[in-house]
């Protein structure tokens, strides 16, 4: 009996000793991680989980309003063609699909081409070009949109007039016409975002060993062949990051269409029949509307959007892993 107790005590003290050793070895690492974990938990994880829970409740901002569990009712409402809110949210998802399908490949193509060209320069010119293309990214969204609204103003805007002379959008109010609105949104988004992706890609290009280029030059490869057979394959991990980043950014688009369509939290959001509405705009509209249960519906919309982002990102990761295995 006494023997067992002694063993237990020994076991406990061994456990304590092991714990102390672990803490001594890894404690500072965990301490270093602590601020991030706390920030992440408080400002990202907790609101996300709380939002998910509240998407199952009839919840409004009213002080005395009762909060009641409604199951999947909010999801049914926002995904049903039969309700005004559902119709609007589904329209916004359709608008988003078109935008994402167009903007992500265009962004990737332009950013890659510009990076390849800039990478041909060295020294000051290289730095100048990188800085020049990155500049629009520094401009706040509303400011960039304001400038483009000026440029694209029908009949008088510099770019709108030039395009009209080429037979594109003559007499068209770009910000109020479906189709043209999407084009304008894509132009502004590309103008702003390409610089950021270009910086990532040029940084990635710097990490490609020079030996590969030297060897290929000796073998008689042209610059174009080097791009296709060395640069782009070697950039694959960076390109993957850029694609994922573009997708997530595009799906969350909000500021530019909000300003372009003159949306208002107390007025019309996304223009006539929501032609210029995107999911995050609908969520904001629901939050501000103050109607009974609308916060619950906004949470449901947010969760649907999060699922879409999650699914697309997961698909990209699975595709990449499969490709890596094949290789």
């Amino acid at each position, binding site marked *: 009996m006494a023997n067992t107790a002694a063993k237990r005590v020994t076991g406990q003290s061994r456990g304590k000793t092991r714990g102390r050793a672990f803490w001594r070895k890894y404690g*500072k690492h965990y*301490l*270093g991680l*602590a*601020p991030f974990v*706390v*920030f992440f938990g*408080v400002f990202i994880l907790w609101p996300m989980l709380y939002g998910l829970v509240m998407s199952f409740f009839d919840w*409004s*901002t*009213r*002080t*005395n*309003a009762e909060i009641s569990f409604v199951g999947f009712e909010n999801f049914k409402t926002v995904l049903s063609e039969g309700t*005004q809110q559902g119709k609007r949210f589904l329209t916004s998802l359709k608008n988003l699909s078109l935008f994402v399908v167009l903007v992500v490949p265009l962004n990737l193509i332009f950013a890659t081409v510009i990076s390849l060209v800039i990478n041909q320069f060295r020294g000051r010119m290289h730095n100048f070009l990188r800085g020049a293309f990155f500049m629009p990214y520094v401009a706040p969204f509303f400011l960039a949109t304001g400038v483009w*609204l*000026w440029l694209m*103003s*029908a*009949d*008088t*805007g510099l770019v709108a007039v030039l395009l009209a002379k080429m037979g594109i959008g003559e*007499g*068209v*109010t770009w*910000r*109020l016409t479906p189709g043209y609105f999407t084009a304008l949104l894509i132009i502004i988004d590309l103008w702003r975002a390409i610089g950021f992706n270009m910086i990532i890609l040029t940084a990635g290009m710097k990490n490609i060993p020079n030996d590969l280029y030297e060897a290929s030059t000796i073998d008689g490869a042209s610059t174009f062949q080097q791009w296709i057979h060395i640069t782009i394959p070697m950039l694959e991990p960076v390109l993957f990051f850029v694609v994922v980043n573009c997708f997530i950014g595009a799906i969350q688009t909000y500021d530019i269409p909000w300003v372009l*369509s*003159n949306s208002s*939290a*107390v*007025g*019309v959001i996304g*223009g*006539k*029949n929501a032609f210029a509405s995107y999911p995050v705009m609908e969520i904001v509209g629901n*939050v*501000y*509307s*103050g*109607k009974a249960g609308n916060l619950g519906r906004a949470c449901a919309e947010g969760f649907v959007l999060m699922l879409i982002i999650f699914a697309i990102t997961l698909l990209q990761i699975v595709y990449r892993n499969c490709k890596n295995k094949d290789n």
Partner: protein
Amino acid sequence: MKKMKRILSLVLVLVMAAGLAACGGGGTSGAGSSTPAEPAGSQGSGEGYELTMWLFQDWTVGTAAEIFNTWADEYIAQHPEVKSITFVGKPDTEIVSGFMAGGSLPDMFAIQFLNGKRIVESANILNLQPYYDAAPEEYKNALNADAMKDLMTNPEGTCWGLPFTANCQLLYRNLTVLEACGVDTSKRPKTLDELLEQFAAVQENGYDVLPNLTASDWVTSAFVCGNPDLKVGWENGETTITAEALEPGYELLKEVGQYSAAYTFLDQAATDAFTSDKLAFTVHGPFLNPNLEAAAQENSNFKYDAIPMPSQVAGGPYSASYGNEWLGVVDSKDQGRNDAAAGFLMYITDTEQMKTFCREMGRPVMNNDAMDEIANDPESPWLLSVCNEIVNNCVNQAVPFRCDMMWETGCADSMFGLWDGSLTDAKAAAEDSIAMINENA
């Protein structure tokens, strides 16, 4: 080096912890609470109350800021229990979201009437009825009766706040262009049909008539409001506006669309075209006027005015809607603090203070005595009397404290569709609008 790294890590952790504490430290209680922030030493005894007030951003800069600060100084001088009054500028959406989020709220705030329902349902707003009842008759009689009715009717016996300012749509006219087109600018068009005749004359002479207004429901509705049968109200959970009352305005929109330029009234192009004698009319709020005044100072040939949008029938209400702003107090559960905040709002909404605001800012105010005196003063801004005339003879943009949205927002899809020609059946569009108002409000 190792020691330095340790010190640096420690400093970083401390800074982050302090940041976190600061983020959470402002709120005095959990979400949904409406207890205002109570800074240390703000309990009245000894140091006095430190009051805060949320205002629209443009009221915390320039002339408006000077006026508010002067009022605060005057009030503090008369009330030793108040130590300071701090004004915090916020966009209206941030004021609304701030109330919805709860946490640290101000003692006093300004907000539009149309957001009234949202605000009083989101936080514990102080019932000002006892203060109002105890106020001198002269003060009570001066406050705009319609606005007070809105503030007091839901529920009966509650006074959510005090009315402050108002705004409305205006029809800006370029007099040089109109005279070149043979339009007699000395007379205002009596009806919207007469206005349409002027549109036709302008178009025939090759000028731009009107910018595209369909970027805003509020501005487009300026062609719809002027019907004597259009009654803005809310009964049994439904709007009192009828499809029949919207239909004539909707018929008119079908015609107006053909006079629309491609640029919108929000574009700089519209202002440039108007100030360079290429555009005859534009519809906007009083906020456009400072830009036009600046242009007129630079170019003496540029002549313009602003008039009310005419009614659909001669002698009927102007085809415009007004919106207004009110001031309220968040219930701090501290009688002394509530008294100090309510007292300040009553002080600034009194006739003398309102006259100053009206004159200096050129904004219509919801104090009739102040408004009448300033609007009739030949030295006051000319736009003020026009705005006053319109506000007193047009419909409200909302049913404050009963319904959350502008009725015009429910009409947006139909109005825009009729303007751009994608809809042609005005009757069906009007019925759709009523259904939309009832469903969304």
